């Protein structure tokens, strides 16, 4: 092969390598960008008067007098729409039955959409579920609902080779000749005066409990559950892991027993996370009966054995990287081995041990599979500290799955799901970032 081709191959090889890294960076961006942008939308959005009503009724927040003024203002505009509905109702009654049928289905859809926007219409019975007691709390969702009001979605089945495509048909012509036809342009033009949207920072998303299966409210129970589980896991795993690492580095003799133990450590590191969940169910709950059924205790124990190998490995590395001169100097001054470990080696290795601990904390917070069978429930209030031994808890990781896949109205609460994912990803990435910074400071200290 001549030199030119070899050089070309060399350059393209370099390009391939750099390309892979660029693709990984892009992938990271592509995954994080929607999560961050839409997750922030759960906290910062244009809230409508319905949301302010909700906050005032359920959480007793906000200026009551200001709210009353706003309600009066918006009611002024809503009343006209309600009057149009009333007039059409009377027209309907006077129509012959076949014409009534013609309008019935579309009219019901119009009323449902209006309820989704403004809340219960005059004449409706008091709804049981909280989600039906208020209209749209977010302006972006209100605009989507407005489309549902103004247009009907039909499906185009004409091309048999292709999946049916949806398309929109305006509702207004369907009501031509009746009084209802004026409702559509009226609502379209005056919706902002009926809902009075305003930018807000809903910090309650982090501190409130959820109302009616996450339709309203916040995600505090989930955040607290994740904190309980992760901190509980660390309480069990951290001391055990550090002590085991001390044994491996300082006391273990090279032999069959030690290599078996190290093998066991890496085996434990490789066990799939769902198998940890099965073990937690079979051992902690069904055999040891640490709690009657799911509980934070069982979940923490399961998570603890999952993160144990990582803590052991990181602590081992940290202890091994302490210069031998420290240990030799301490022993030379007459200290015992145990004293040396406690007063010289461990403090010197502490940053590295903490780095491993912080990364494991992030992992314990983010894992779902071990807690599915042992600790997690889908709905619930934030449990008190005294209940950790016996009751299960909602958790960010489990509830993200639950809201996205199993929830009855998953498509309507997307913003809550994004908010949860953002919360979880933020917690984990912050922990990892602090570990990276810690490690950079350690390597600087060791070099200099």
């Amino acid at each position, binding site marked *: 092969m001549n030199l030119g*081709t*070899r050089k070309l191959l060399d350059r393209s090889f370099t390009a391939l390598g750099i390309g892979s890294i660029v693709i990984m960076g892009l992938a990271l961006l592509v995954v994080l960008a929607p999560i961050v942008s839409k997750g922030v939308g759960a906290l910062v959005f244009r809230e409508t008067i319905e949301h302010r009503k909700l906050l005032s009724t359920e959480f007793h927040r906000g200026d009551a007098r200001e709210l009353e003024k706003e309600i009066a203002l918006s009611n002024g505009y809503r009343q006209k729409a309600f009057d149009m509905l009333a007039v059409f109702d009377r027209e309907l009654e006077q129509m012959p039955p076949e014409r009534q049928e013609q309008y019935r289905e579309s009219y019901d859809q119009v009323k449902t959409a209006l309820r989704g926007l403004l809340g219960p219409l005059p004449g409706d019975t008091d709804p049981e579920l909280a989600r039906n007691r208020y209209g749209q709390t977010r302006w972006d969702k209100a605009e989507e609902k407005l489309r549902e009001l103004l247009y009907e979605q039909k499906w185009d089945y004409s091309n048999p080779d292709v999946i049916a495509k949806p398309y929109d048909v305006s509702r207004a012509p369907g009501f031509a000749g009746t009084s209802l036809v004026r409702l559509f342009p009226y609502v379209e033009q005056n919706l902002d005066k009926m809902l009075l949207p305003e930018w807000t920072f809903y910090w309650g998303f982090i501190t409130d409990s959820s109302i009616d299966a996450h339709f309203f409210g916040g995600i505090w129970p989930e955040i607290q559950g994740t904190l309980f589980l992760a901190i509980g896991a660390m309480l069990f795993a951290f001391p055990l892991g550090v002590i085991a690492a001390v*044994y491996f580095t300082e006391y273990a003799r090279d032999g069959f027993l030690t290599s078996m133990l190290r093998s066991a450590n890496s085996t434990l590191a490789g066990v799939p996370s769902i198998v940890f969940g*099965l073990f937690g169910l079979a051992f902690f709950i069904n055999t040891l009966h640490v709690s009657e059924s799911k509980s934070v205790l069982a979940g923490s124990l399961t998570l603890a054995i999952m993160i144990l190998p990582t803590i052991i490995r990181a602590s081992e590395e940290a202890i091994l990287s302490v210069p031998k001169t420290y240990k030799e100097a301490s022993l030379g001054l007459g200290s015992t081995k145990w004293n040396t470990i406690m007063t010289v080696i461990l403090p010197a290795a502490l940053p590295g041990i903490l780095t491993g601990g912080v*990364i494991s904390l992030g992992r314990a917070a983010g894992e779902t599979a071990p807690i599915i069978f042992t600790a997690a429930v889908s709905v619930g209030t934030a449990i008190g500290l005294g209940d950790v031994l016996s009751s299960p808890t909602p958790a960010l990781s489990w509830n993200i799955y639950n809201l996205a896949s199993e929830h009855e109205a998953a498509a309507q609460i997307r913003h809550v799901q994004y908010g949860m994912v953002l919360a979880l990803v933020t917690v984990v990435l912050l922990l*990892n970032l602090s570990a990276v910074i810690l490690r950079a400071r350690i390597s600087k200290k060791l070099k200099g």
Partner: protein
Amino acid sequence: MQNSSDMIDDGASKQGRSSVFIVSARKRKLQKISQKSGEATLLLIASFVAIVVLFIFWFVARDAIPFFRIRGFQEFFTSSEWYPADDPPRFGALAIIYGSLMVTVGSALIAVPMGILASICLSDILPFNVRQYVKPVIEMLAAIPSVAYGFFALVVFAPLLQNSGGPILMWAWWLIATPFLLLMVIVASELLTSSIAKGAMKKTAHLGLNLILGALAVLLLYFVGNHLQGLMIMSGTNALNVSIILSFMALPTIVSVSEDALQAVGRDLREGSYALGATRAETIIKTVLPAASSGILAAVILGIMRALGETMVVWMASGNSSHIPDPWFNYLESVRTLTATIAGDMGEADQVTGSARFHVLFAMGLILLVVSFVSNLISERIVVRQRKVLSGQ
């Protein structure tokens, strides 16, 4: 090293005071006992890890074996009919095992080449300060919780695939295949004309081959691209979706362990190869990679294990339909994996703890456990063997 108590001993007795630094024989014995018992306690705590591993095997197997006792092995491994809720329930897990294999292989096909290339780039090509910025990116990829990946796969990626999957695949094909085909054309024409002596004939042959192969490559690009563009993806939650996301989850493992293996090869080998006039690419491919091959193999095994054992991504985005796809390589169909079945079916099976439905999930867990254990053993043996070879050289 002289015992310090001896020196102080002399000084104290010289001054006539009783020395508190003499350690009596009894005290020394006590010290030794407490030291030994302390060590024993530490050993106990350290062996906690081994005890846990044994317990995991024991308890998972204990709840898995009853299934095989009730239903036997044949149906589970050879039948594709998975209907655990039917009246005579059927537990044919072949399609589910196939689904696990399919997404694992798919993610390996993407992650292994990319991971090895990236680790080579990190260890040999990138300058040190750039490496300090790239490593956090890879660590962040590893740190993102699997639920977040699963959410992305379900809510962002699946609709994207479903609505415009064909064009996306076509663009991916063009972006990836064009540079490769270009390179192959140049190298192939070079190799084929290498036997001809230098001169005008060589130049014309070279040019001719370039044109012919180039035309073939363009035709290939065009036809495959067209076919891809016309693809209709029925459901965005399919094996392709899961494979792509899983590959990005397995990448950090492969990259970091491979990088360690590449670093362990050492500078001598590389410098020798450069001294003989090889380009960097030739050095890496012909010298460094073979030397680090066992470590890289271990890294690949670890990465594949990660993809096999992943639960949340597959549960949310694989479609969860237990059937073997129509042409067996059709990644655009929904599949079901072992991990997703365990996670999903346990909710219904939990109440009936004595039943085959509960035990079959443990049987699947046992399969996963055994496979991961064996792969771990293999990858450890490989690493140990490589360490012996490298230090023995």
